[in-house]
């Protein structure tokens, strides 16, 4: 089954979000004092601490963020490889991030502009839109080749694109596709969420 554009876009946007995160780290490392003054941990402002402990706090904060970004990049890789669990985790992460942004915007009146967090919020929403699309869902939930069979079946075989081997309607559709003159598929078979 051909990888749909939605999955590629979703994965690419996740990579873009990682890049924006690393850019933030680099900027923070270049101006450590300025950055330290903007954060508050447990009511303690690292900006008011002495040099050595402030640096330690910075390294821990930025290190943890960098580690999270690396894990996120790995997740993007698994999404691109078409793993459904990775897609679900990525969507859950985007959802939580959007909800947190919205609550802060709604309750505390935190402004969301291009100069603050609009870009990362937009990325989260675009990632969620791409990965929740029907094409990305059908691709991530496609039937996989079992280990005892050749890893890659015929790309245009009748089982291709069929997300569920037991739904007679989909078998009919798949068989009729197999009989048709083949053209590369776009979007795959539309699945009916209601039946599963």
């Amino acid at each position: 089954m051909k990888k749909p554009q939605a999955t590629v876009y979703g994965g690419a946007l996740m990579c873009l979000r990682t890049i924006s995160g690393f850019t933030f780290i680099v900027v923070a490392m270049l101006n450590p004092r300025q950055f330290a003054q903007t954060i508050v941990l447990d009511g303690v402002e690292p900006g008011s601490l002495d040099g050595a402990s402030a640096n330690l706090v910075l390294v821990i904060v930025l290190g943890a963020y960098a580690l999270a970004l690396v894990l996120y990049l790995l997740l993007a890789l698994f999404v691109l490889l078409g793993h459904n669990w990775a897609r679900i985790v990525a969507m859950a992460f985007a959802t939580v991030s959007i909800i947190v942004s919205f609550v802060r915007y709604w309750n505390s009146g935190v402004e969301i502009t291009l100069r603050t967090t609009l870009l990362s919020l937009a990325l989260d929403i675009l990632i969620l839109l791409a990965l929740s699309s029907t094409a990305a869902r059908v691709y991530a939930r496609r039937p996989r080749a079992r280990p005892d069979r050749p890893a890659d079946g015929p790309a245009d075989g009748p089982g291709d694109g069929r997300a569920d081997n037991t739904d007679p309607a989909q078998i009919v559709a798949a068989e009729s596709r197999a009989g048709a003159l083949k053209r590369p598929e776009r979007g795959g078979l539309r699945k009916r969420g209601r039946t599963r």
Partner: protein
Amino acid sequence: MADTASQVRSHVAGPVKVHSPRQPRSVNAILDTFFFVFAGVASVWLAILIFWESFDWGWWAIVFALAFWLVLAYLVLPRLHRILTHMYVPDYFIGRTRTSDGLLGDPVNLAFLGSGEQLHTAMTAAGWALADDISFTSGWRMVTSVISRRSYDEAPVSPLMLFGRVQDFAYQQEVEDNPSRRHHVRFWRCPEDWMLPGGHRADWLAAATFDRAVGFSLFTLQVTHKIDEDIDIERDHIIATLRASRVPTRVVVIRDFSTGYHSRNGGGDTIRTDGDLPVVDLRRVRMPGDPEPLTPVPMDEPPVVVRGVL
């Protein structure tokens, strides 16, 4: 599609439940539905944020207005239509195709009998060009040809859905070397042993419309082709080109297959039809290697008109 299959089953084996007991709604499916709808809601918020942002940037507001339209037309409205049409548009055969957003698209107004090869042979002989698949390259070439008014004979056509899937292929004829005006027809292979309502047999169904200009879709605000209102002219044009070519065709017109109606297609353009469905029999089209027929094949038999089931 699933509904059609279950109706068939219920006809032969008594009533069956639409939801098979072996397939309860999985956590996966519930999560998918939630994320699908939540993404739609979140995209509305994004559009609003971009709209407000445009006020802070002076002349750059034009860029934000463009971004706002892009988000609205290509993300928000398609997703909202997708959620709503999933609930209210029937997913079995009603003689209409559906757009990828689930909206009712061009009507099915032609049927064919014959193999895929015979169909390709006949359409090529009748002077039609196979449309390219939609891809980044073909899409870009389409956009540049429309803007520069350069000819693009095999321009791609947008995907429309029938039987729950995208068309198998499409044919088109450019008019006046201008890619924004063209005859075009999409083809879907019918499922095995599938019958038209009323019990007529068809191997292929097709939806033919004439693109008269490029404009904005009424429902999604996307840039799209606007179609000519009288879709029967396009249907009859295809029959005429096939009959004028040197391939043997037999046409049976199912009169009042659907009652005549007027409606709108997926881009919001009005459509009008008398509801007749011609079934074009191409089974006598000779392929290379086929034996010579014993009796000469009559080339231009008059169309047979039949009525739907009374």
